[in-house]
């Protein structure tokens, strides 16, 4: 049951009215239908309302259908702030700065790899460093780490990891301007030194998938997707480097809150005025971490191509292994949006939300000017992932944003308890999915039942029109940390 004050706007969204909580400057909007409404936690609603109290928030505090309680801001949250009156908050980005997803397509068909799947998964598992305590293959010197922070995926390509043509198929070209390596702590430098090119753990993964359903033939054609096609999805972020940047700047922001006398309903919303040195410094450091993440996914994709090449004894070009797109789903960016009929620059926080720009948007590469931006939505390891496309309606309603994934429904321990006495890998294998993980309990924590059904989440954003379904991908081989 929804709390009494909440109002259903239509079958895909509800309103948290501005009188829901004292101090709210705008209303909240949560994109859920009646199915997902049942999973809506009261804490998440409170967090959406809390964000609505922050200075300079524009239009509404929003949450996507995969919303769940997070650190200060709900995960699945979208909030945009005015550059004169508004704030910047690390809690609106999260610890894993530029956690995101990239999708690589091939010209292989499902039937080409099914007989060899187990071996292919093993090769990839050995090739891609993953899991707690794993060491990457790259050691960064302070100088190379600086260049990485400034150049992102371009750094990786210049070091020989991938091709220049990959860069145009990455959000922001794989490198966001305005990173400042001088604002990065010694600790973050140290922590990032050996973690470039590592997958991490938790819900991060590398998946071999196939396209099992096309919903929009025209867009799928334009992107290059066809039924039965093998794809590879990579979900990871800025690793310990980004976590340290967030940790460092939360302390800075704690002090800024008292310095600028910002009243907060929750100290986890710690923030500073956009124009303050604290906010500008955080943004410059966050951009360095975002670039670290884009380089990370670039390196991992490069090794994936190499592994395929070796395994199939052919070149990546012959395998048609080209990048579809790469999206960030934990980031704050200055973007131009229309507010009250006027173009305005805003700082848009997406925490567990994906940019979904429409056809014709100036920030899109030529390849996607006509179709709109590909949006990549990973699901749990047993069900499905989706490719969507950005829409004009997202620009009008959600600052060009949509959902980012499935969202957990079970805590890790609940999942482990539920999996007790079961061999999750075997259950998956019976369904034709080969899984490998570094951690013994990872598969239990990450089993399908621990997540909402991503199809329900995608259904809501599709019906709400803030992105459109293009294709569904099914997992075949999964590598977890």
């Amino acid at each position: 049951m929804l709390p009494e004050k909440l109002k259903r706007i239509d079958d895909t969204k509800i309103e948290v009215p501005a009188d829901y909580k004292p101090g709210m400057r705008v209303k909240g909007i949560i994109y859920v239908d009646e199915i997902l409404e049942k999973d809506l936690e009261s804490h998440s609603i409170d967090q959406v309302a809390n964000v609505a109290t922050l200075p300079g928030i524009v239009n509404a505090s929003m949450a996507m259908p995969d919303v769940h309680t997070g650190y200060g801001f709900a995960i699945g949250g979208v909030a945009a702030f005015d550059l004169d009156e508004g704030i910047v908050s690390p809690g609106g980005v999260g610890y894993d700065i530029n956690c995101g997803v990239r999708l690589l397509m091939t010209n292989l068909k499902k039937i080409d790899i099914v007989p060899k799947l187990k071996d292919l998964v093993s090769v990839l598992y050995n090739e891609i460093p993953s899991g707690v305590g794993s060491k990457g293959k790259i050691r960064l010197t302070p100088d190379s780490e600086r260049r990485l922070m400034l150049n992102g995926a371009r750094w990786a390509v210049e070091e020989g990891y991938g091709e220049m043509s990959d860069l145009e198929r990455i959000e922001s070209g794989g490198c966001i301007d305005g990173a400042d390596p001088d604002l990065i702590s010694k600790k973050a430098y140290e922590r990032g030194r050996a973690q470039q090119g590592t997958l991490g753990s938790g819900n991060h993964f590398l998946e071999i998938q196939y396209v099992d359903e096309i919903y929009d033939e025209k867009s799928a054609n334009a992107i290059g997707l066809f039924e039965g096609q093998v794809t590879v999805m990579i979900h990871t972020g800025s690793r310990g480097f980004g976590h340290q940047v967030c940790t460092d700047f939360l302390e800075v922001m704690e002090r800024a809150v008292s310095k600028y006398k910002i009243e907060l309903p929750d100290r986890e919303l710690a923030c500073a005025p956009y124009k303050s040195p604290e906010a500008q410094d955080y943004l410059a450091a966050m951009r360095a971490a975002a670039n670290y993440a884009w380089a990370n996914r670039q390196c991992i994709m490069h090794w994936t191509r190499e592994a395929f090449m070796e395994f199939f004894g052919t070149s990546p070009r012959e395998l048609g292994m080209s990048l579809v797109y790469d999206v960030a789903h934990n980031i704050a960016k200055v973007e131009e949006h229309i507010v009250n009929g006027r173009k305005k620059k805003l700082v848009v926080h997406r925490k567990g939300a994906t940019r979904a720009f429409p056809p014709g948007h100036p920030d899109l590469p030529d390849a996607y000017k006509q179709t709109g931006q590909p949006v990549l939505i990973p699901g749990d390891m047993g069900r499905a992932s989706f490719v969507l496309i950005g829409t004009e309606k997202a620009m009008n309603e959600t600052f060009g944003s949509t959902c980012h994934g499935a969202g957990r429904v079970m805590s890790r321990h609940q999942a482990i308890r539920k999996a007790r006495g079961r061999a999750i890998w075997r259950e998956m294998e019976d369904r034709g999915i080969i899984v490998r993980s570094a951690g013994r309990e990872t598969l239990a924590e990450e089993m399908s039942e621990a997540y909402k059904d991503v199809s329900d989440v995608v259904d809501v954003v599709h019906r709400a029109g803030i992105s459109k379904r293009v294709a569904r991908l099914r997992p075949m081989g999964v590598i977890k940390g």
Partner: protein
Amino acid sequence: MNQFEIIDISGDVGIKAFGKSLEELFANAAIGMYSLITALEGIEPEKSINVSIESNSLEGLLVSWLNELVFQFDTYGFIGKKIVITGITPSLTLPPRGGVMGGGGICTLKATISGEEFDTERHERKLLIKAATYHRLKVEKVKDIWQADIIFDI
């Protein structure tokens, strides 16, 4: 008195730590966190590191302390087994919840941690902790026992 209990929340995980003194509380919080990363039985106290932390509140001190250990693990692979906290100052009074210790004063902690370098071949790999957070953070004395709730970002 247990050293710690697991706090189970969707998405992340936390611990409730206990101690007869603040020193014991902070040491148990660290052991609790380490036990989320690996099975501590497998860790040997082969080498020691010293850390010193400061913060303007007791709660902030706990977060900074655990984040220092997260940093040591994530950067150098160092995982602790035995923790000796040589002093937390000031340790006599507790400010109001979330308040600042001793009217804006500084809280400090010094500790020696014995453990070893994590080895993926020998040690169990459990959770990758990104950070200790301020989410639902609480340090309080209930009867004669210090208690702390701390949630980790996983």
